[in-house]
């Protein structure tokens, strides 16, 4: 392997491993990916993994145990650039829907009772930026092939990723779909990051928000729009919070305050 190839590590924390799997799903490009970069660590794909210095670390999943936190801190030390890949790494994902520590604890006890875990201590699921500085974010549940390949291409050449800077609605309009909100169907397109191609709406189904919120998402407007359509507060908050994890924490806190 020539020296000038960038060294890349792909790491999985707690999640469904869908982002790593999507990389393996780039069937036609996979050989090129392995040729263009020196993939030093990719546990799902290879057994000869090296723990050394690297140029870029792609991290998937949320931090959910003490061991993962340690591993993540070590990855940060070894990598020049850290990219969070997937909704879990970016926002915590579905397992970060319990935003309050006490709420998480209560639910943890319901599942595991008093069993003391000997292998590693559990932590409330959080996105990786709760523990380390993250350079770039690549959202998706799972990440999209197109956006991943473009990001991969750019970062191995030392360029920052160029992501879509608009919500799902834009892609939806490109596809000339009818707006589901106009049909009183609770669609999260307006507040969700684009990149999926508005896939659900193309299938006559509402956006569930799985790519997490777009930076600067107008949650307030979406909230009141759904309220006008007759959905209750509890329903809307749950719907908006299913995938958004910490990405929506501030807004939900604000809404709670207003209610009182």
């Amino acid at each position, binding site marked *: 392997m020539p020296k000038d190839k960038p060294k890349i590590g792909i790491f999985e924390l707690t999640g469904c*491993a869908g982002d790593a*799997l999507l990389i393996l*799903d780039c069937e036609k490009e*996979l050989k090129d990916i392995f040729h263009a970069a020196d993939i030093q660590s990719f546990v799902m794909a290879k057994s000869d993994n090296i723990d050394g210095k690297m140029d870029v670390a792609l991290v998937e999943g949320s931090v959910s145990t003490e061991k993962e936190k340690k591993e993540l801190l070590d990855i940060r030390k070894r990598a020049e650039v850290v990219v969070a890949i997937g909704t879990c790494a970016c926002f915590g994902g*579905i397992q970060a829907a319990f935003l309050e520590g006490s709420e998480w604890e209560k639910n943890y006890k*319901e599942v595991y009772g008093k069993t003391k875990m000997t292998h590693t201590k559990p932590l409330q699921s959080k996105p990786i930026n709760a523990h380390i500085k993250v350079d770039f974010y690549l959202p998706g*549940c*799972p990440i999209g092939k197109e956006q991943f390949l473009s990001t991969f291409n750019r970062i191995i050449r030392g360029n920052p990723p160029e992501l879509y800077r608009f919500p799902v609605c834009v892609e939806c309009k490109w596809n000339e779909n009818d707006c589901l909100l106009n049909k009183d169907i609770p669609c999260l397109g307006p507040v969700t990051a684009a990149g999926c191609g508005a896939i659900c709406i193309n299938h006559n189904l509402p956006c569930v928000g799985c790519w997490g919120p777009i930076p600067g998402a107008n949650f307030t407007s979406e909230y009141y729009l759904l309220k006008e359509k007759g959905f209750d507060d509890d329903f809307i908050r749950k719907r908006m919070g*299913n995938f958004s994890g910490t990405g929506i924490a501030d807004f939900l806190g604000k809404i709670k305050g207003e209610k009182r």
Partner: protein
Amino acid sequence: MKRIKIDHLARVEGNGGVVVTIDGKAVIDVKFVINEGPRLVERLTLGKTPEEDVSIVPRICAICSISHKYAALRAMENALSVKVPPKVALFRELMHMGEMIESHSLHVYYLALPDYVGFPNAIAMASKFDLEVKIALEMKEFGNHIMETASGRYIHGENPVIGGFGRYPTNDELLRIKARAIQFMPFVLKTVSLFCELDYPYVPEEKTIFACCNPEKNQYGFAGDEIILSTGETLNKDEYKKLTSEFIVSHSYAKRSRYKGQPYSVGALARINNLGERLRGEAGKMFKKYFNRRWKINPLFNNAAQAVEICYAFERIPQIIDKMLNLPDPPLIKYKTREGKGTGIVEAPRGLLIHSYEIAEGLVSSTDIITPTAQNAEDIERYCTIAAQKLLSKGEEDKIRDRMDLVVRAFDPCISCSAHMAEVKKALPESWKSRLAEIKEHGLPLFVGVGKSDCSDDGVGLQLALELRKQGVKDVWLESELAEQDCPWKNGLDRPLVFLDAVDFKEKPGKVTLLPFHTILTNTVLSHRLLPFLSCQISYDHLKNSYILGIQPQTIEKGHKISRPVRQALNRVVRQIKN
């Protein structure tokens, strides 16, 4: 004490490991550790609408996401009394075939095959098996293409919903899939031969129980409303808890399952064992050609079973599509039910997957999800123990790590279902002392001396018990006394139970070890004639809290004299217990 550790089990889907601890020639502990953190998915679904649940739960696992979707839909539709038209059922079966092809071909070619041909990964393997690697990729891509057509995208597609699909494929799209499925057949048949003819090692081989869905009408398939076991028993889906009886272990966030106290296996090998006779066509021919008794006892044959299933799936696809072509696209079935209870079972690529829900006031009020890897975890540990012990007894300690990798990988664990992989650890000298102290922390132990008093050192367990009694230690029995009264420790079921015995773990005479009781059942070299019998009297819960304190004998020939090193060890043990 030595440990063999495979910390980051590579080439499995997820994050887990195996730790094997050996003391002399005895395997004293095997743990299949899943490093995935707790996600509390079942709890996350509470209070959500049935639609939200169906969208959240596939996120448990990317590679089984279609199976999770399918199981959740079946469960929800049972709970909400929704009956779907034939085209929906067929389209769901088609999407499931896509997942089987994608997951199985990824596993057999990319994750498993490199081990058998000596490469660290599939990309490196391409240097020698260029054509196989290329076509396998295309096969996997074809599986993905079916899933994309059916669900909207490769992973976590949202198109399958309660009551049907958001969008149906055109006949053109279906016909293209049919044509490609037929084109793949020559390579599919090669795949079956390749994986059925691989040189699978003989260690570990041992009987197990197989469980899978029982498809209707005596067909082969990946869904049903009944569970069928290799014992011949069947269970209705609503009785699934009789099969799984879940419990928690302290070294994993994934729950464990046992059937009547015994580990069981799920997955392609379970299906082929239980349902293989039902296969028709090329898959049926392949089954008849390759299936033999080793498939019933050797988990490594799961790779071969998956290859046969790839063949089944490729033959099934044109049949499904032919039926779909003539059916109109049905509208989404609407439901008004707001209360209900329902279970849905399907076969994920790696085995039986169960979803069960209760709905109250239109929202999910109870969720129970049991994944295949959680059910396989106990059998994975058992087969690793057998493999490690057999290799250790043969003096092939250096092979343990790789063999365990092979075993765990054969199960195709999808570890995010709640696993990176193996470590071999050596017990520290005299570590039995500290472990005895740990045991004591969980309660005052009960002691049972076992052995044969007329076989010299084999009588040390009995002597030890008598000596403890003499020194005033309470709750000490001899094995002969157990027959007289039934279960003398009735009031001490929460207290640890320690058997005292001579144990041949191929160490210097007089060495002491402390083993968890269950290891004795698989460690053939060590088993005391009475112990398996005694274990029948112990409840499974108590068995998990039972141990054997063993002293390495010098001789077990006829005679009443206990050798000097063993006598000295006896005194050391007595002193330690008294402290």
